């Protein structure tokens, strides 16, 4: 057995895989999964089916062991991120990450669901079932998923208008998303908010904000309140490279640093602020360094395990030492919004290049397959399931009614004091605010 293993390790050349792929560390955990041994025929047929790794010199141990049902294997797997973290004013966390089959498959499923959801939203927008602004997140899924894996629901997340997937990661449902986008009652904001205004307060998700940069001081305010209440929890305030130059960000960071607030500022750097590339907007596009006195970390935002590792590190740091900046190097496949083709300020080659080399879902797929945690067919089945879930939610949302007219006047105030409010014709439509 050891000779086969070492033979496999020797033959495992990193360049069999695309450059962005994980390099496997040379050790596995010491627990062999307890299982009956399959026949050799079965083992050989699995050799043939898992063709991705190519090499015949797969470790016999993995061929013989029966893979557990794909969603339950929590046997720790240790990996390295493909790119090390770059640190500013702090010690970078280790590249070595702990995960499991269960976690990787959950990541795969969650990201595939988000991807499908955003692509479906694109179609709905073009069919005019979604109106106004619609900012899609496809390409950036690893940030939402990796972050959520590092947090609890006691921690707060706040973001700007590219919020559909962050909402889902915090526990939102597909129906709430599609109903909100289509302006229906079952929407997370009962149809009154729209794409840019998703909220889920019971999961400490604070939206959903349309004015670039505004969410950062708000996030620092959440952190202030957490510290004030001694909650031992943190806030992740997300913003883009476009928002990174906003003055209010630096004002809020200064206060957070002075007061040691548990605030983590996360720059989702997708390299374009609407139509303006980062180098045209920022004198220093090294956003993780822009905190100056505040430490920062640059993270491969297309690598969900690196995102999780960085967020875990940041949470620990912020609880002890105050604010820290995380720069997630990520990419959006769509334009800024559905009104922006996304191709006038970047080349199609660049977009397809990122899709081929760095797509977060493809990375996890390759990882799962090369570790034999699932077959290609099983992953494709997950994608089919996810597609069906999305289609079902859309169908349900389409049947959902629009808000009642009386909703016009609800929630203007939390406490209405019995004042009157008016419609467009104040003599025709008036209501007492509840």
């Amino acid at each position, binding site marked *: 057995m050891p000779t086969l293993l070492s033979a496999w390790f020797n033959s495992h050349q990193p360049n069999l895989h695309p450059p962005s792929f994980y390099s496997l560390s040379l050790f596995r955990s010491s627990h062999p999964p307890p299982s009956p041994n399959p026949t050799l025929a079965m083992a050989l047929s699995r050799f043939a089916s898992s063709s991705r790794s190519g090499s015949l010199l797969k470790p016999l141990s993995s061929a013989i062991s029966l893979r557990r049902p794909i969603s339950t294997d929590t046997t720790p797997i240790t990996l390295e991120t493909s790119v090390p973290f770059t640190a500013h004013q702090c010690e970078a966390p280790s590249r070595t990450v702990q995960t499991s089959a269960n976690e990787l498959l959950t990541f795969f499923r969650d990201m595939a669901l988000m991807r499908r959801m955003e692509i479906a939203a694109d179609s709905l927008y073009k069919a005019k079932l979604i*109106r*106004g*602004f619609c900012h899609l997140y496809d390409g950036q899924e690893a940030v939402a998923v990796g972050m959520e894996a590092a947090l609890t629901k006691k921690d707060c997340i706040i973001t700007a208008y590219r919020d559909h997937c962050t909402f889902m990661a915090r526990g939102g449902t597909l129906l709430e998303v599609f109903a*909100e986008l289509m*302006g*229906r009652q079952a929407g997370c*904001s009962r*149809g*009154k*908010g*729209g*794409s*840019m*205004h998703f909220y889920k307060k019971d999961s400490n998700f604070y939206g959903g*904000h*349309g*004015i*670039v*940069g505004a969410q950062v001081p708000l996030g620092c305010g959440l952190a202030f309140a957490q510290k004030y209440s001694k909650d031992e929890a943190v806030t992740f305030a997300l913003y883009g490279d*476009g*928002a990174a*130059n*906003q*003055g209010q960000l630096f004002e809020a960071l200064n206060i957070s640093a002075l007061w040691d607030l548990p605030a983590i500022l996360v720059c989702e750097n997708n390299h374009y*602020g*609407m*139509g*303006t590339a980062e180098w*045209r*907007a*920022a004198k220093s596009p090294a956003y993780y360094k822009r905190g100056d006195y505040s430490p920062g970390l640059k993270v491969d935002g297309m690598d969900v395990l690196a995102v999780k590792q960085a967020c875990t590190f940041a949470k620990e740091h912020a609880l002890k030492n105050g604010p820290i900046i995380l720069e997630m190097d990520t990419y959006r496949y769509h334009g800024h919004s559905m009104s922006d083709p996304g191709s*006038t*300020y970047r080349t199609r080659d660049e977009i397809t290049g990122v899709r081929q080399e760095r797509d977060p879902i493809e990375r996890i797929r390759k990882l799962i397959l090369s570790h034999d945690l699932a077959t290609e067919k099983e992953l494709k089945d997950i994608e089919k399931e996810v597609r069906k879930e999305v289609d079902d939610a859309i169908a349900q949302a389409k049947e959902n009614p*629009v*808000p009642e*007219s009386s*909703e*016009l*006047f609800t929630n*203007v105030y939390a406490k209405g004091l019995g004042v009157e*409010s*008016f*419609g*467009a*014709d*104040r*003599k*025709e*439509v008036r209501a007492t605010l509840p």
Partner: protein
Amino acid sequence: MLGVVRQKMLGQSLPKIRPAVSVLRSYSSAAKQMTVRDALNSALDEEMSADPKVFLMGEEVGEYQGAYKISKGLLEKYGPERVRDTPITEAGFAGIGVGAAYYGLKPVVEFMTFNFSMQAIDHIINSAAKSNYMSAGQMSVPIVFRGPNGAAAGVGAQHSQCYAAWYASCPGLKVLTPYSSEDARGLLKAAIRDPDPVVFLENELLYGESFPVSDEVLDSSFCLPIGKAKIERVGRDVTITAFSRMVGHALKAAEILEKDGIDAEVINLRSIRPLDRSTINASVRKTNRLVTVEEGFPQHGVGAEICASVVEESFAYLDAPVERIAGADIPMPYAANLERLAVPQVEDIVRAAKRACYRSVPLAAAA
């Protein structure tokens, strides 16, 4: 029978009094059509060509050709010194614009929508509007702040507010609200040439609309006076004031009212500050009834100021209380059916005008 014939002839003669605009629309070959977008673009182009001190600054105005394509082609024509793409930092670039104006340049600062101007409002009010006064005339601020204002379609609460009332309450500012392509060209040129800070409130939904433009309007010297309203439709029975997109609604309401025998006079305000009180009052003294229309929130709105002006100057001429049609007194909802209820519709204007016309006795004290 003769009476009937006479009535019919009267009915037929009414179209003659209709505004030149709609007559020209039906004879499209007689006048050139121009979209508001092209009107703004051509005005910017001509003013930049005429005066090298004029420059444009804002998000996506250059390489992207303008978020709404208003500045299309200008970067190619005038170069990056005069068409400046800024980062998403309104407080910063608005302040920089005002500083440049102090020094004598003529900046045109674009806000992608006026909702974002709130990030820069200190510079608009404190740095621009008040400077000429505080310096006893040494520091005039020849700056134009322009961009789309008011509701679009389904853009939600943070992207739909109308800022006319807020800016127009501030002395030192001039606030303009074009409706047609002629307005867009004439008023933008006037704004750029004006030595004072001008807040130029466009409307996204009007950008694609076409209006006829005469040769005079197309001439590069064309300019409209600031502070003068335009009577878009002459009438006898009720005055309807409106600005920006609501002028179109008011004109449609007037057509409907005409069928019910109400002859409405529609005033396109064009300028919210200075407000053309004399035109408004002269009209109300003629018609004795007034409906004010605006998109923005009702409380302390433009209609409230117009009503106060008329009550102060033409009280004895009013035969009915002033009617106000405005946006609903709520943040803008997203859902299409709710949004429709939150923005004035043509039928709201018709209803209010009818109330103004049929009321001859004051309402019994309402609850």
